[in-house]
């Protein structure tokens, strides 16, 4: 005899089960769309060739959720190191999105940023570029990409304009200038922009020559000899910190003292490495870059949080990288707040409609044009004073007056 233990389900039970199963399957999407905090993947080159800058950006990212919470934004971060490697950038973007990232911020380096952009485009996940100056980033037709940073031409033209402002503010004229640049990706792009923009900027002095150097060279003695022979009053530079150190050391060795060394839109002169290697010789160099507005309330909040979280790092030194990374995350958080959804399409529409008046970096409100470029970012003149980057122009945000001509190398203590 066989015991019949199987019970046949009724049609109603099957229907009920199907509804329940459907609800369970749909739940993640619904929950995702109604999430209370936006999951932002922050992809940075925290190791490898670009580690120093990537780490500075990362320090800004890790304090962002707390600072943004105080301003009414809710974000959760997925921090990813892509090791300055394009392959890793692409696969890790896929991983971050698979782990639930609703938006991506990054990636400091243009090649990696484009690799990330393709994944974001296919997955319909907004990408907010924190730092990346290659103009093509916003010229490739990506719909899920915005850039809260200046392009190379914007960096150079803004930098040159501020040289004029500097001359007016200090009443120190320059008779002539030389442009010295690294022959790497960034340096060559800056050179191209300089060649095009210097004549258009109608500068009151001629550019005698542009001199390229190999950033991997052991010293820059030959280049400095060349510069010295031209006797320029102003040396415009595009450097990274390691070669900026070599450049200044060789200038000191050869006792070449221009009235000013100005970077019209490049890093290198404000890294901790530069200050530590050169000591007092690191002072009085100028760089015209978008910078953290020291008088903005949000900058002060970010600086305070930064000091607590990273007591061994200085916000004044990291604020360029940290500030733009913070703003990238804020753009995403603000869009989420307005969209009320983590759905990629809705979120991207909100990102494109961004209008944030109160923020960290210098310039007008954060807004994006139809290509996704923020054209309202303005550069400031920053000068090294006591081995600390100090905003000296424009007057409304300056905390000190510019010193020009720079004091002699000799006798600095």
């Amino acid at each position, binding site marked *: 005899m066989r015991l019949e233990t199987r019970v046949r389900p009724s049609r109603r039970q099957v229907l009920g089960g199907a509804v329940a199963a459907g609800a369970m399957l749909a739940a993640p999407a619904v929950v995702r769309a109604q999430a209370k905090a936006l999951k932002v993947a922050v992809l940075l080159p925290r190791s490898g060739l670009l580690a120093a800058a990537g780490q500075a950006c990362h320090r800004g990212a890790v304090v962002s959720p707390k600072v943004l919470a105080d301003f009414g934004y809710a974000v959760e971060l997925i921090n990813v190191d892509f090791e300055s490697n394009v392959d890793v950038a692409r696969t890790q973007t*896929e991983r971050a999105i*698979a782990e639930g990232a609703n938006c991506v911020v990054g990636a400091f380096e243009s090649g990696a940023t484009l690799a990330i952009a393709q994944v974001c485009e296919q997955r319909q996940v907004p990408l907010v570029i924190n730092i990346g100056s290659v103009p093509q980033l916003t010229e490739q037709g990506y719909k899920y990409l915005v850039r809260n940073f200046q392009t190379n031409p914007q960096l150079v033209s803004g930098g040159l304009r501020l040289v004029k402002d500097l001359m007016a503010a200090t009443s120190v004229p320059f008779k002539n200038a030389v442009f010295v640049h690294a*022959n790497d990706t960034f340096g*060559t792009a800056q050179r191209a922009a300089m060649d095009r923009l210097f004549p258009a900027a109608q500068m009151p002095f001629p550019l005698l020559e542009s001199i390229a150097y190999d950033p991997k060279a052991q010293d820059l003695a030959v280049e400095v000899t060349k510069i010295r022979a031209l006797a320029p009053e102003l040396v415009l530079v595009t450097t990274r910190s390691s070669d900026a150190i070599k450049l200044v050391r060789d200038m000191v060795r050869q006792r070449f003292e221009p009235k000013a060394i100005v970077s019209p839109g490049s890093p290198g002169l404000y890294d901790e490495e530069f200050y530590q290697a050169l000591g007092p010789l690191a002072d009085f160099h100028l760089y015209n870059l978008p910078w953290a507005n020291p008088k903005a309330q949000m900058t002060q909040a970010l600086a305070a949080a930064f000091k607590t979280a990273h007591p061994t790092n200085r916000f004044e030194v990291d604020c360029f990288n940290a500030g733009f990374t913070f703003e990238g995350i804020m753009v995403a958080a603000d869009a989420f707040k307005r969209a009320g959804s983590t759905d990629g399409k809705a979120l991207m529409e909100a990102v494109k409609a961004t209008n944030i008046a109160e923020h960290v970096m210098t310039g007008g409100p954060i807004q994006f044009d139809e290509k996704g470029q923020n054209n309202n970012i303005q550069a400031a003149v920053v000068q090294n004073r006591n081995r600390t980057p100090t905003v000296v122009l424009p007057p409304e945000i300056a905390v000190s007056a510019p010193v020009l001509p720079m004091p002699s190398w000799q006798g600095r203590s």
Partner: protein
Amino acid sequence: MISLWRDMNRRGQVVLVVAVLAMLLAPVVATRYLLSVLTLILYFVYVGQAWNLMMGYAGQLSLGHALYVGLGGYVAAGLWVHFGIGPWLGVIPAVAIAAAFGAFIGWLAFRFGIEGVYFSLLTIAFAEFTRIGFDHIGPLGGAGGLFIPYQESRLGEWWNLRGGQLFFYYLAFVLAGAAVLLTAWLARSRLGHQWMAIREDETAARALGIDVFRAKMKAVLISSAMTAVGGVFYAFYYNNLFPAQVFEMSRSIELILGPIVGGLGTVFGPVIGAFVLTPLGELLIAVTDKAGLNAPGAKAIFFGLVLMIIIYLVPGGVWPWLSRRLGLVRRRS
């Protein structure tokens, strides 16, 4: 192909069929992340196999193979961006130019007796020259990079290598499969045996009547041409090329690690090497991220340690050890 199949015992044949089927069906179950990792693995299988022909079989150590990746990528991408010539056509001049570079390097080295480490230095030097040269070629973007426009409307155009992750996965699968089959065929051909004779003892090979110069030139030509095809894949997968990235020495090293770890001079060495190293890298990133470990280079240290352990435990490569251990190949008497 048939001899490769015959070299395996029943167990080996079953494992191979299952592995191929698993790779073919992977997109059905794999997430997009896994698929992107698999694509990368297959890409490294392909370029690793190309390098394996030259070093593993012919015994010529090239440390500048990124040169051919870059040349292939730049030529095809440049033709597409400036003249609208699709990559299936563009791959022909790309391969021709890379092979011409390979031929020149080979001729220079083999004609004038530049061997061993000096040959390796020559390959590095050419990769560096070319990187510096491309930094200054304006129409190809110079140091500022060459960008292939991303057009959503063209996404389905597989004939122009404009596709999504799935398309590139299968393309990489076909390339990797073809490279394995070609290697298996070449390894058993007359040329393959000549290469191995040269690798073991060049003087003895010459004494046996092998035209050493010609055989080595063929190795360089085939390897450079194959690598250039990998470069075309790279360019259209990432849609951008920077000389500083694509010709970089670290790229060359990345490309040769798979065959070294997997087993030099074996058909499946580069395959196993890529399947060990790429997931290991991804795993270490995930683990260090999850552990909140933010020391720069921590992952690189772990990676290096694991690599040292693998090389210490299986100095002949993972594949020869694995195939013996699992009994995947026929024992030769």
